[in-house]
């Protein structure tokens, strides 16, 4: 495998010229590749991509998200998923195929203000995302401390194959529920929650640094103050 070249870029900055494949957050103008977001540009044998460091959450099918119920109608709940679109959770997917609004009452299941952990089942640019709570661990979130980070920083918080999240979880005795939309729930003992919050804030502010994992480990072991 050829090595990957990285550099910091701002929108409009020329990343490379030549015959590459644009992967993400890149535009091509006459063989020149320009970044369209602030982030880390990566040039590899696969092509060019920019890992953004800021930006809104754009839903993707199969994403797990944490959302807040903001409204309901006779047939669905409206959920705020920290995105530019509201998501819908159809009552049929919760109560089953033969759901009838006369028999079941929606607010008894989820009322306004409830947090739910759900999966995006359909989304395209013409329609708002539709959620589902069928799946292991999905549904109403009963307890936990909620914090928000920039959606662009979520992959960094998860780490390679979940390494970062595992490190934080084992050091703080907490369980982290991460929504791809940048909403995170921490469940565990109070001092663990505090430490995990500090760690997550550190991931957010140092997401672009190569030394992040080391810094997090020293924070968690108590040898470094924030």
């Amino acid at each position: 495998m050829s090595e990957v070249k990285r550099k910091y870029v701002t929108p409009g900055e020329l990343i490379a010229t030549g015959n590459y494949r644009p992967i993400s957050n890149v535009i091509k103008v006459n063989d020149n590749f320009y970044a369209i977001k602030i982030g880390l540009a990566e040039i590899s044998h696969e092509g060019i991509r920019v890992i953004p460091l800021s930006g809104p959450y754009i839903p993707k099918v199969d994403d797990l998200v944490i959302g807040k119920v903001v409204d309901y109608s006779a047939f669905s709940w409206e959920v705020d998923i920290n995105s530019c679109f509201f998501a819908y959770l159809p009552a049929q997917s919760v109560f089953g195929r033969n759901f009838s609004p006369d028999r079941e009452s929606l607010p008894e299941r989820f009322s306004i203000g409830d947090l739910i952990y759900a999966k995006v089942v359909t989304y395209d640019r013409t329609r708002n995302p539709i959620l589902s709570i069928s799946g292991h661990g999905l549904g109403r979130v009963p307890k936990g401390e909620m914090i928000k980070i920039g959606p662009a920083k979520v992959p960094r918080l998860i780490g390679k194959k979940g390494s970062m999240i595992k490190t934080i979880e084992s050091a703080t005795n907490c369980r982290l529920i991460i929504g791809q939309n940048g909403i995170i729930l921490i469940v565990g003992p109070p001092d663990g929650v505090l430490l995990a919050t500090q760690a997550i804030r550190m991931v957010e502010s140092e997401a672009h640094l190569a030394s992040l994992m080391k810094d997090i480990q020293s924070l968690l072991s108590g040898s470094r103050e924030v």
Partner: protein
Amino acid sequence: MVELINEKGLRIDGRGVDELRPLRIEVGVLKNADGSSYIEMGKNKIVAAVYGPKEVHPKHLALPDRSVLRCRYHMAPFSVDVRKPPQPSRREIEISKVIREALEPALILEEYPRTAINIYLEVLQADGGSRCAGITASAVALADAGISMRDMVVACAAGKVAGQVVIDLDDTEDKEGDADLPIAIMPNLNQVTLLQLDGIMAPEEFEKAFNMAVSACHRIYEVQRGALIDKYFGKGEAGEE
């Protein structure tokens, strides 16, 4: 009548003809906005805030294939010598439109269909060339908000003062001078997104002024870029594990 350029060739505030006012840009000054910036260009002080993309209200304004860009340029009542009434004036409404149209070509609005992106520009202190400073600040705030952009947008004015072509006019030069030519460009793509001219210039003067303004824009772009790099990559080496 004030002497706009003295016998040494210096302007009213002591600058040379091809010299910018002191410039400072800060990124992420407002916690509640999705993206924000603060610019000081000479005595201009402007805060830019970007909200969005988010759902459009009223809903009928939403476009099915792209985002709606909205811009509000507003001068604080205390931004000028004589109190300015706070409601949007004819001039502010026009400048809002001009700024919006200068930024639109740089944004990839098709990426956010059925949404709105709002830009708020608050002029805290005005000293001529505030539309240019506003455009420069908005572009930084948009980049901070993480909205996809083909390029940054930078703006700078050139003009004719006491028969000479100069750049980055201040308030006195703007009022007493012969012509004012604000332009905005996308510096990497080399495209013009705003070009206005108030006053009279000979064709060769126009060409000179235009070229001087473009090169000034490139200098301002470096400051813009530096401000963003500072905020996002302030310390340490690049890396992703």
